[in-house]
């Protein structure tokens, strides 16, 4: 019994050690910001991806072969992803590329993957342009406008009819979300009572907030990044605004709650996934991830995990690693049960799936509900 359970491991070790037998492995490329400015995102997504590959291999691999993940660090430096994509494709002969979180990095590697007809799956680049590069480029996250629609739907379900917008004119992300929210909200009968703007790096929002206060909104939609949102929330409460704030995944950042204190209690934002989601798929994932890395997986880790799982699923369905067939199999992904939701890839190679709404209470994020597209 004991020997029998050790044998496959020995066999696997022996196979891995002999280069001549390496074609029994399927090489998958990955590029991520493991160091530099966006390292926290990159490390999370890499951990998630690596965990998925491990699980697939322990489960016997795909098409009877193990997956071999070739990971390269782009050091959060512009220009690196293009070099890495070339290296992965021409030297390592990978059959597909996974990466990256930042849209700007994905946009650098995408044209090279497209040119070489190597499928690329981005875990978390939400900018609409990424998958427009070509028919070999996919993503497992939803795109920016979707979050705006989700929050509009959610606000209406809460019975809020009057919403004020406070958007960041320097961020395409913020303007896109605000536009999608406005379209969704007014289209369904709600009214936008005030539109105010700020710029990234601003610290004083009292003028905008005083003007918003006078319009007596039921809630304020602030689709910005956490740095500004925390100060906006503080100053809103100081000015006596009681309405909850609403936002998107840009809210998630380490300093958000430290700066905001209790000012964001009772506010809501949309995200890709929640580690508190009671669904068994998610709780299983949280448990294995925590056992391996000693911390709870964030949204980037969950998306990295799903990107690798979707690739493996497509290889199995294609029955080959032949690139055009693999591409078609990825494109045909339908209702894949990922940890970030049931993923279906649409005609534009973007994931359509439910978003998660979180609220802020007791100094942490809490799961509220899923909103289907």
């Amino acid at each position: 019994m004991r020997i029998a359970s050790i044998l496959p491991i020995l066999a696997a070790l022996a196979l891995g050690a002999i280069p001549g037998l390496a074609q029994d492995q399927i090489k998958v490329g990955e590029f991520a910001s493991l160091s530099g400015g966006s390292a926290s995102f990159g490390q999370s997504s890499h951990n998630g991806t690596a965990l998925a590959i491990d699980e697939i291999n322990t489960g016997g691999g795909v098409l009877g072969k193990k997956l071999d993940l070739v990971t390269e660090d782009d050091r959060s430096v512009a220009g690196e992803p293009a070099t890495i994509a070339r290296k992965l494709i021409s030297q390592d002969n990978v059959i597909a590329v996974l990466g990256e979180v930042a849209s700007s990095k994905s946009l650098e590697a995408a044209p090279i993957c497209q040119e070489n007809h190597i499928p690329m799956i981005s875990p978390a680049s939400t900018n609409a342009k990424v998958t427009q590069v070509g028919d070999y480029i996919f993503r497992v996250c939803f795109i920016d406008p979707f979050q705006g629609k989700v929050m509009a739907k959610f606000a209406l379900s809460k019975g809020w009819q009057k919403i004020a917008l406070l958007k960041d004119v320097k961020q395409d992300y913020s303007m896109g979300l605000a536009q999608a929210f406005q379209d969704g909200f007014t289209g369904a009968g709600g009214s936008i009572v005030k539109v105010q703007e700020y710029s990234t790096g601003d610290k004083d929002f009292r003028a905008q907030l005083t003007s918003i206060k006078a319009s007596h909104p039921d809630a304020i939609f602030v689709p910005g990044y956490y740095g500004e949102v925390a100060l906006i929330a503080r100053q809103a409460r100081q000015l006596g605004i009681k309405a909850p704030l609403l936002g998107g995944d840009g809210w998630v950042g380490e300093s958000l709650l430290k700066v905001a204190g209790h000012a964001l209690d009772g506010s809501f934002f949309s995200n890709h996934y929640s580690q508190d989601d009671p669904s068994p798929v998610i709780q299983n994932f949280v448990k294995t991830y925590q056992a391996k890395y000693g911390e709870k997986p964030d949204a980037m880790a969950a998306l990295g995990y799903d990107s690798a799982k979707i690739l493996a699923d497509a290889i199995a369905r294609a029955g080959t690693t032949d690139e055009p067939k693999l591409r078609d199999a990825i494109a045909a992904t339908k209702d894949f049960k990922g940890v970030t939701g049931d993923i279906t890839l649409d005609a534009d190679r973007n994931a359509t799936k439910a978003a998660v709404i979180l609220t802020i209470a007791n100094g942490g994020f809490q799961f509220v509900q899923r909103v289907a597209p």
Partner: protein
Amino acid sequence: MIEFLQQLINGLSLGAIYALIALGYTMVYGVLRFINFAHGDVFMIGAFAGLYLAPLIMKPFGGGPSWPGAFLVLLAAMAICAILGIVIEKLAYRPLRNRPRLTVLITAIGVSLFLENFGQYAFGVDPQSFPDLIGDHAIAIPASFGPLADLTIMVSQVLVFAVTLFLLIALRLIVTKTKLGTAMRALSVNPVATSLMGVNNDVVISFTFGLGSALAGAAGILISIQQPSIDPLMGLQPGIKAFVAAVLGGIGNIPGAALGGVLLGVIETLVVGYSDVLHIPSGYRDAVAFFLLILILLFRPAGLLGRVEREKV
């Protein structure tokens, strides 16, 4: 009406912040005829000095908010910034003192970039939360004031305003009443003559930089109490705004900087607050500020309170 009053308070408070940073800018310019573009970044260093020193200094005061503790943090940050200012002057500007003014100006931009990138490396790029040193809260206005009781005025806003006013007076006294101040003014008129009269120019210039940087440090702490999110690039935008304020009031003129700052703050706030009425989207507030700068430079190049000086040929 209440909304308008609240916007006025918002504007004055924002203006006081610009004024506080502009004071240091304008003082250095007044003496040395040199725009220290690194001023905003010294302001950032002041805030981070406060962030790292606050836990140590506040501990004997119980660790929580305390006015004497906050005062000590303020002094410590001012001291660190003063030393930094003197070192910057000695290393970067002094070797270039007899070179064309443009050389020093470009060096100042270099120092500014150095501090920003050093800050990103040393402190990290993510914003950090600044401790509440004074227990900031809204001042309760008695209900007997009727609708005025709805106005929000924060303790920190009053503090920034009061300190700006205090420093304005203190600076004026230093420059006009002390021996060192007299030397500063003399040096700004003719540095060769002052050195012939036995003034040690190096000491006076070091003092000017030290004082200007200490003011930036004070601003760093006070503003971080009011807006408790600090990052290595936080000096960039207020630095430029304070520069506009200083030019608006007449660069080199100390009361002018305060006036320019307050004016800029109020105008920006009203543009944002009444963007609907004015048909200017509130995102254009910076554009309005810089448009104002262009207008002033066109019609009153010396600024509101500045004297017109003829360049001698």
